[in-house]
């Protein structure tokens, strides 16, 4: 048996395959739910209503989609250029930490919101960039594989956050609990609904996704970064400056991951703790791949992942089954989805 790439993947398959994947994932998860003694059919209904069925569910789903779009984009732009940035998690944290840190500077916190908010977002993006430029520098200078360094730096970043929020950035009003000083109210992103967490980060993330898509598809930089990823030797022959292009890619990727952290802290939590991210950075990688590295598809993939998680999480509470089922369902659907996307592109031959 072997697989042969389809010259022209059919449209029907491209749509049908992911649907089959979701169904299969739900079927598998249903089995696990049944083992826990609950009714899978009821569980399916609860997943749907949990994610969409109420104002709360909908707003929570979209709130969770927001950072996932940005980390998904971070991975997508890096992977396009074959820059294996597994460090979005750490970049997310540094980006988040940069916001209160920036606001601690003298005079900054007295700025009005319309000025302060963009500055804070930028601070987050820059922090993320810096954390990715370091491993990139090691790769360019010493040839150190960035898969490993970015992975390890995630731990360093979280420990650094921990160091800061127990040290110089510790919130004196937080009763000694390790958390950063809060972001000033002026820098908090406006809420989109009252009595819910949904915030202006969502439209921002959507706009960023469109912008990234446009840059990737239309700009010289986008073309060069793709060339570097697909065939670095040929790119060099065509005069694409490898180092500079990768640096730019790293700035964009790290910047997006950092931005995700900044948006999360400015939109949802207002201060930084070491459990700010439930693996947003790692999930971003899978989301990027589900989206086939297409920035617009990242939106859909992020939404999908959020729906699965919020729905399954709420279902687990409603049915009193272990809440870990939410992560199981998301992971299952990611795996089946990967296979489905593959099968839509290949045909099986004997």
């Amino acid at each position, binding site marked *: 048996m072997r697989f042969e790439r389809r010259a022209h993947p059919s449209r029907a398959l491209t749509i049908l395959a992911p649907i089959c994947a979701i169904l299969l994932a739900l079927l598998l998860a249903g089995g696990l739910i049944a083992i826990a003694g609950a009714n899978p059919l009821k569980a399916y209904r609860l997943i749907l209503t949990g994610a969409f069925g*109420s104002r*709360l569910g909908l707003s*929570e789903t979209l709130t*969770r989609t927001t950072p996932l779009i940005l980390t998904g984009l971070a991975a997508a732009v890096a992977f396009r250029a074959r820059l294996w940035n597994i460090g979005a998690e750490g970049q997310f944290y540094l980006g988040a930490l940069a916001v209160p840190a920036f606001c601690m500077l003298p005079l900054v916190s007295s700025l009005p919101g319309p000025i302060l908010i963009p500055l804070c977002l930028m601070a987050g993006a820059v922090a993320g960039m810096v954390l990715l430029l370091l491993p990139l520098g090691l790769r360019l200078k010493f040839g150190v594989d960035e898969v490993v360094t970015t992975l390890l730096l995630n731990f360093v970043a979280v*420990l650094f956050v*921990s160091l800061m929020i*127990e040290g110089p950035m510790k919130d004196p009003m*937080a*009763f*000694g*609990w*390790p*958390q950063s000083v*809060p972001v000033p109210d002026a820098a908090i992103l406006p809420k989109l609904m009252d*009595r819910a*967490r949904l915030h202006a980060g969502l439209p921002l993330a959507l706009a960023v996704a469109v912008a990234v898509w446009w840059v990737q598809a239309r700009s010289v930089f986008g073309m060069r970064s793709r060339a570097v990823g697909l065939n670095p030797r040929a790119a060099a022959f065509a005069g694409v400056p490898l180092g500079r292009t990768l640096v730019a890619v790293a700035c964009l990727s790290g910047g997006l991951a950092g931005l995700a952290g900044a948006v999360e802290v400015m939109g*949802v*939590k*207002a*201060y930084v*703790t070491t*459990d*700010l*991210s*439930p693996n947003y950075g790692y999930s971003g990688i899978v989301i990027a791949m589900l989206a086939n590295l297409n920035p617009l598809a990242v939106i859909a993939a992020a939404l999908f992942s959020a729906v699965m998680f*919020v729905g399954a*999480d*709420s279902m*687990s*509470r*409603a049915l*009193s089954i*272990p*809440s*870990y089922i939410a992560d199981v369902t998301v992971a299952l659907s990611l795996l089946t989805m990967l296979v489905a996307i593959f099968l839509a592109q290949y045909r099986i031959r004997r």
Partner: protein
Amino acid sequence: AQSPVKVAGIHASPVENAWNSVLHAALLGAHEEGVIDYTFSEGVSGTDYPRAMREYAEAGNVLIVGESYAVEREARTVASDYPDTAFLMGSSGEAAGDNFGVFGTWNWEAAYLAGMLAGEMTETGTVGSVGAIPIPEVNMLINGFADGVKAVNPDATHLVSFIGTFFDPPKAREAGLAQIDSGADILFGERIGTADAAQERGIKAIGSLINYTPRYPDTVFANAMWYFRPLLDTALTDAVGGNPVGKTYTPLSLMEDGGNDIVFVEGVAPPEAVTRMEEVRAAIKAGEFEVPRNFDEPA
């Protein structure tokens, strides 16, 4: 009898974590007695915590028990959005509104008593404490232990390690072993895992929050127990009775009110040490002695 009250628990850690297990056990106990109808979520990260609160509130729970340490601000926002639901949260902050009550984990008195035993028992003159993260409640506990030791043995050395996380028993164990290597012969295990090190090296250990003696029969000879049931019952009565829950329930953690106490194995500590400790214990219960409260990070 009346039908059970709907109560939800939201645990940031898995319910194995000692602190959560105290809440969880109390809640399960009440559930089995038919007092409450208990559902829970565990391992809920900071990001998901407010959603869990909202969902349980919308599901009609009368009382929601949990911990708002990592989400103080958001938890209070949620409570204000759901005024008809009562919240009882482990918190280092103040109560808020009519429906957001808080409690602290104050078993430092029991730790002080355990420290008195340890101070008299140590042969090397060195004891150790393994803690999670230096937050006030943990500091207070470890300081309480250290003060107890110093009270009977002013020359004793007290080693402190923090493992940087709330739940990593093997790490706590390694930290304990490191302290033993540095001369400690009694360990105070603010974190689970510490006693494993003591057991392995054949020295004694002291537990915190729950009774570790059955688990380490020859190792853990004393425990600084903390009891949640008094807190739960009081808050439940308030919530059902329509009284505002928005107050501080911490005093119910005091030894005076049966919220914490020492549990120890007879015949391990020298009798005179036990006698001296029992005197202090009685004094605390009678309100005649106050164990110093020190929230600063132990040096």
